[in-house]
C-alpha cells in the first residue's frame, strides 16, 4: 500500500537504530501519548530493539480508556430505554461500566449498532424517524470534527431524532497535566500524528517552551516512530526543547483550519474528567447550547450508581506511573476476555497491548 509500505523497510530501520545507539548517552523516558502509537510500537516489536537507556512510557491517548465509568453507565442507561437506538464506534462496545457493557445490553435485546462513521449514525436517524438515535461521541481532536460535522448536517437536514453524548477530549491539556503532576519523569513526547493533523504543531510549543520537554509529532509506521525517537534523542542530547514535525507528509504547522472551525462552531471547551487521572481543566468538548437539541443530555436519564472496579490501577497506567504488569489484577483477574479496567478492553489500551504482544 502506497505511503504505508515505504515506512516498513528493515534496512532503514537498522540505519536509524544504529544512529540512535550512536548518539544516545542519557537514560531517558519518552512518552508516546497516543494509543495507536502504543499498539504500533508493540506490534512491530520496537521496545526491545531500542538500547536499554531509552524507556518508552505509554500515555493517556486512548479515548476509550480515559472515558470515566459514569459515562459508560450513561450510554448503557440510554440503551435500556424504549425507543432508543445507540450508535457507537466498535471501540466502545465491550468497555465495562459499573455492572454491564453495551455488548451485554445488546445480548439482552437493546438496539446497539456499530457504525464506522458519524454520518452512518446520522443515516440511521434518518431511516428511523420514530426512534431516538444517540451517538456515543468519544474521540480526540481527530474524531471531534467528524462528530461536529454530523451535528451540523443534522441541523442542515432538519434531522430531529439525532443526538450525541459528548465525551470528546482534547490532548495538550492532558500532557501539561502530567508534567505538572510531576509523578513521572518525561524527557520527551512522541506526539500524536493524527490529532496534530487537525490541531497543528502550535499547541505543543508551550510544552516545549515552558516545561523544556521536546515534542516530536510522529507518524504511525515503524520508520516514523523510530525516526521520531531519533529526533527526540537528538534534541535531548543537544539540550534543545522544540516542537519538530516528523510526520511532515500529513501534519502542517497550522493544522486543518476547516476541521478546527467545525469543532469551534459546535463545541465549547469545558473542564473534563479523565478516568484514572481526574478532572483536567479545559480538556473536554461539550456541545454548545446553540446546538442543544442535538445534545443527548437533554434527556432525563437515570443511570445506575457508579462502581469502580476494585483494585484496578488503570489510572496509574494511564498516567505512566506504573506499567501494566505492576498492577495486581493484570493477567490474574483482568484479561481481554474478562476485562476489569478500560486499558485492558480497548485494542489500543496499554494493558491490552502488554497482554497481547509482550
Amino acid at each position, binding site marked *: *500500500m*502506497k*505511503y*504505508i509500505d*515505504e*515506512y516498513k*523497510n528493515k*534496512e*532503514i530501520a537498522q*540505519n*536509524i537504530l*544504529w*544512529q540512535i545507539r550512536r548518539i544516545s548517552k542519557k537514560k531517558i523516558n519518552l512518552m508516546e501519548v*497516543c*494509543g*495507536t502509537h502504543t499498539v504500533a510500537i508493540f506490534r512491530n516489536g520496537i521496545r526491545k530493539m531500542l538500547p536499554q537507556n531509552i524507556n518508552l512510557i505509554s500515555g493517556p*491517548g*486512548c*479515548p476509550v480508556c480515559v472515558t470515566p465509568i459514569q459515562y459508560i453507565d450513561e450510554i448503557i442507561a440510554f440503551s435500556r430505554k424504549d425507543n432508543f437506538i445507540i450508535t457507537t*464506534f466498535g471501540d466502545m462496545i465491550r468497555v465495562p461500566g459499573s455492572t454491564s457493557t453495551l455488548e451485554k445490553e445488546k445480548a439482552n435485546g437493546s438496539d446497539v449498532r456499530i457504525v*464506522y*462513521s*458519524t*454520518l*452512518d449514525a446520522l443515516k440511521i436517524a434518518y431511516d428511523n424517524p420514530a426512534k431516538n438515535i444517540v451517538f456515543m461521541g468519544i*474521540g*480526540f481532536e*481527530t*474524531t471531534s*470534527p*467528524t462528530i461536529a*460535522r454530523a451535528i451540523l448536517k443534522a441541523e442542515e437536514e432538519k434531522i430531529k431524532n439525532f443526538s450525541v453524548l459528548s465525551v470528546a477530549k482534547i*490532548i495538550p491539556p492532558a500532557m501539561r497535566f502530567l508534567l505538572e503532576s510531576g509523578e513521572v519523569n518525561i524527557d520527551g513526547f512522541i506526539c*500524536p500524528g*493524527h*490529532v496534530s*493533523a*487537525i490541531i497543528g504543531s502550535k499547541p505543543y510549543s508551550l510544552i516545549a517552551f515552558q516545561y523544556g520537554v521536546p515534542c516530536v509529532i510522529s507518524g504511525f509506521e515503524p*520508520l*516514523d516512530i523510530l*525516526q521520531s525517537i531519533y529526533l527526540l534523542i537528538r534534541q535531548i542530547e543537544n539540550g534543545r526543547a522544540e516542537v519538530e514535525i516528523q510526520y*511532515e*507528509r*500529513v*501534519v*502542517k504547522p497550522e493544522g*486543518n483550519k*476547516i*476541521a478546527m472551525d*467545525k469543532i469551534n462552531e459546535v463545541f465549547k471547551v469545558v473542564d473534563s474528567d479523565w478516568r484514572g487521572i481526574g478532572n483536567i481543566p479545559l480538556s473536554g468538548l461539550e456541545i454548545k447550547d446553540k446546538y442543544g437539541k442535538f445534545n443527548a443530555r437533554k434527556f432525563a436519564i437515570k443511570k445506575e450508581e457508579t462502581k469502580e472496579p476494585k483494585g484496578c490501577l488503570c489510572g496509574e497506567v494511564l498516567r505512566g506511573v506504573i506499567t501494566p504488569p505492576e498492577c495486581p489484577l493484570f493477567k490474574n483477574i483482568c484479561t481481554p476476555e474478562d476485562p476489569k479496567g478500560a486499558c485492558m478492553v480497548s485494542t*489500543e489500551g496499554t494493558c491490552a497491548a502488554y497482554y497481547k504482544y509482550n
Partner: protein
Amino acid sequence: MCLAIPGKVKKIFNDNTAEIEIGGIVKRASLDLIPQVVVGDYVLLHAGFAIEVIDQEKALEISKAWEGNID
C-alpha cells in the same frame, strides 16, 4: 488514538463525497473537512472522513534521508 489510512481520490461526487482507493479497496468518504481535494490526490482517511491531504514530496524524504545512512 486515531486510526487513519492513506488512499487515492478516484472520483468526486456532487455531495462532496469521494471514492477513495486504498490498496485495491474502494471506500466512499466525506470531503467536508478538506474540500480543496482534487482527483489523484492522496488523502488520509479517518472514520469515513478525509482529514488531510498527503504531501507527496515530503512523503519521500524519510527514505531519502536514511537510505545512505546520512544524518
